């Protein structure tokens, strides 16, 4: 939990606040990338897909900024205890959010491959945005938990990952069934399998961030939870 007191050195508080702001800004961009990639996919909007790919550079730039600031804080402020754990967590979380951005970018890249000109629309696409929404909310909530140093909120995010995994399993089966029934669409639907897998990975990353937030907030490791095996795509 956040300490009620401020640092005697006020500039230290400013640095910590800035670090949190950068992480939440990064998270906002990653959520937007996921939403736009899914929108581009459902609407076959290649211009929007291209935009998602271009915007990924902004996420990378913030990651670099987080790294610079974290190193500076460690060098100049010698943070201890929960401050130290938070700075280290920020470093690691920035790397994970960057990965989440990459998954969104990867989804965007597949937009032209899923929609072959002249072919029928693949109905299975319509079930993917709901799954993406679920993963995106996990990312949102876990970064809020980080800002608030809220270990309980982090646990709630982890608990949601099983539902996302179940969602993935059901989409996997649906897409395989679709391929069997529509053999001409195998190549397009194979890309959708990767999209689903990417979304499932985003959820895993949100879970990892939740574990980092828990450690930063409490100094203890979150107990190993039962992981549900997900078939590899």
């Amino acid at each position, binding site marked *: 939990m956040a*300490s009620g*007191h*401020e*640092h*005697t050195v006020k500039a230290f508080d400013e640095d910590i606040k800035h670090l949190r702001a950068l992480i939440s800004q990064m998270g906002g961009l990653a959520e937007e990338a996921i939403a736009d990639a899914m929108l581009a996919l459902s609407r076959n909007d290649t211009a929007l897909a291209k935009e998602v790919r271009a915007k990924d550079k902004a996420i990378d730039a913030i990651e670099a900024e987080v790294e610079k600031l974290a190193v500076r804080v460690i060098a100049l402020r010698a*943070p*201890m*205890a929960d401050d130290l754990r938070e700075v280290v967590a920020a470093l690691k979380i920035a790397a994970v959010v960057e990965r989440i951005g990459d998954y969104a970018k990867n989804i965007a890249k597949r937009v032209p491959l899923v929609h072959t000109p002249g072919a029928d629309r693949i109905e299975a696409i319509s079930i993917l945005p709901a799954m993406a929404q679920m993963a995106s909310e996990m990312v949102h909530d876990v970064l809020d938990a980080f800002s608030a140093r809220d270990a309980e909120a982090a646990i709630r995010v982890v608990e949601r990952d099983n539902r996302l995994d179940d969602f993935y399993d059901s989409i996997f089966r649906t897409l395989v069934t679709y391929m069997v029934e529509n053999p001409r669409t195998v190549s397009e639907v194979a890309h959708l399998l990767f999209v689903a897998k990417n979304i499932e990975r985003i959820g895993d990353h949100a879970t990892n961030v939740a574990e980092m937030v828990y450690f930063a907030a409490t*100094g*203890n490791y979150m107990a190993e939870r039962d992981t549900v095996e997900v078939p590899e795509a």
Partner: protein
Amino acid sequence: MTQVDYASTSADSAAPARAGAGAAPKMSARGVNVFYGEKQAIRDVSIDVDMENVTAFIGPSGCGKSTFLRTLNRMNDTVASARVEGRIMLDGEDIYEKSMDVVQLRARVGMVFQKPNPFPKSIYENVAYGPRIHGLARSRSDMDAIVERSLKRAGLWEEVKDRLQDSGTALSGGQQQRLCIARAIAVDPEVILMDEPCSALDPIATAKIEELIHELRGKYAIVIVTHNMQQAARVSQRTAFFHLGTLVEYGETDQIFTAPRQERTKDYITGRYG
């Protein structure tokens, strides 16, 4: 790693702060109170220190860490208004018993102070003084050997071996402090108490003292009082945090600095105190 069971001390806990499983305590304090006249400086402190670990006492000015350190070799006896209650044991023997010879005690529990305080005598005499009054050397060559060994252990021999007759006060501050450590070592102590040994030294001299503390670990039980938390983190394996005369938390240094259990410890080490 073995699981260490801590009775993490808080004000409401009567249990002594244990140094950890496996290490037999060299010194144990139980229910120690210290008063200066009417004013109580230490409240019900119980703690163990052992040979294998360097123990650091940290806390804000006036928290009682130096006062408590001084009870460990009865340095407070020299303060007329000071009164000590409770029990402090060295190898299970109460050092405040009437039968305890204080001069002998201070040979067994040596002390190094904040400001280097060599005698205004030669480097050799500074080290030889203690062994001589305690009758530890039978001959001149015995004494030479003790002086050489002590200066070597204090990491000063190479710098002074060719000028042992020079005055101790002619050395640099860092060298003087290492001379004081050699002087403490010369009488073959079991415990060395250090009260802010580096606060008057520059970073290089400080690093040498810290390296020395590292080398002396295991040979002596070492207790160091420091205002410099980074120093406590660097040199110690156990850290005790004092506040307002009480022992707030005592644990492995790693744990104290990465995940302190008490709110007051956290506020202090993260710079949120006051």
